[in-house]
């Protein structure tokens, strides 16, 4: 079965600072990977998905970017965080429809 590792679990960052969230997957190869964001009191919104190394599709225009440097690694980044980037970020894998434990980001 697949396991998704996300870190860090929590993060407090000032406005304007950079961001890098990492997601790694075990137990499968060449998976479809996804980044979702869950804002307080709302459902989950798909931000990015990737079907392979270097292949990124963005679902919504925003201040964030994603990269997939390795088959089982998916990174979410920002050059300058905004207050509106606060939320709970979840990485997911198509195989097994599995989610990671998430990163709670608070931008202050």
């Amino acid at each position, binding site marked *: 079965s697949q396991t998704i590792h996300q870190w860090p679990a929590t993060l407090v960052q000032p406005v304007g600072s950079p961001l890098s969230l990492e997601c790694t997957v075990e137990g499968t190869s060449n998976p479809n990977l996804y980044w979702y964001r869950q804002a307080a009191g709302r*459902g*989950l919104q*798909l931000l990015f*998905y990737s*079907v392979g190394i270097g292949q990124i599709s963005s679902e919504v225009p925003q201040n964030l970017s994603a990269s997939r440097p390795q088959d089982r690694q998916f990174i979410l980044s920002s050059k300058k965080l905004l207050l509106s980037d606060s939320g709970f970020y*979840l990485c997911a894998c*198509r195989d097994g*429809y599995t*989610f990671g434990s998430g990163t*709670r980001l608070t931008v202050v």
Partner: protein
Amino acid sequence: AQSVTQLDSQVPVFEEAPVELRCNYSSSVSVYLFWYVQYPNQGLQLLLKYLSGSTLVESINGFEAEFNKSQTSFHLRKPSVHISDTAEYFCAVRSNFGNEKLTFGTGTRLTIIP
């Protein structure tokens, strides 16, 4: 395009009482359906899924859901709830082609009253 509606944002239920969490979806193509559970400050755990075959699917902890194509519904039920079932529950739909992304409802917070 597809969408998911969870009409009830909060459902309080007494312990050992039955519960039904409602989920309706909209899609122009055939879909797969999912229920996820989220405990506080944790990620999402897959509770059960309907891909094909029997329209009634069950989870290991007593929940079940029935796919009703004519009513475009996938309601989640449990005959007797426990305190440990307190969590947020998300219904999701996925089309079986394209980028295979999951589209989620806004969630239902289930609170069990002792």
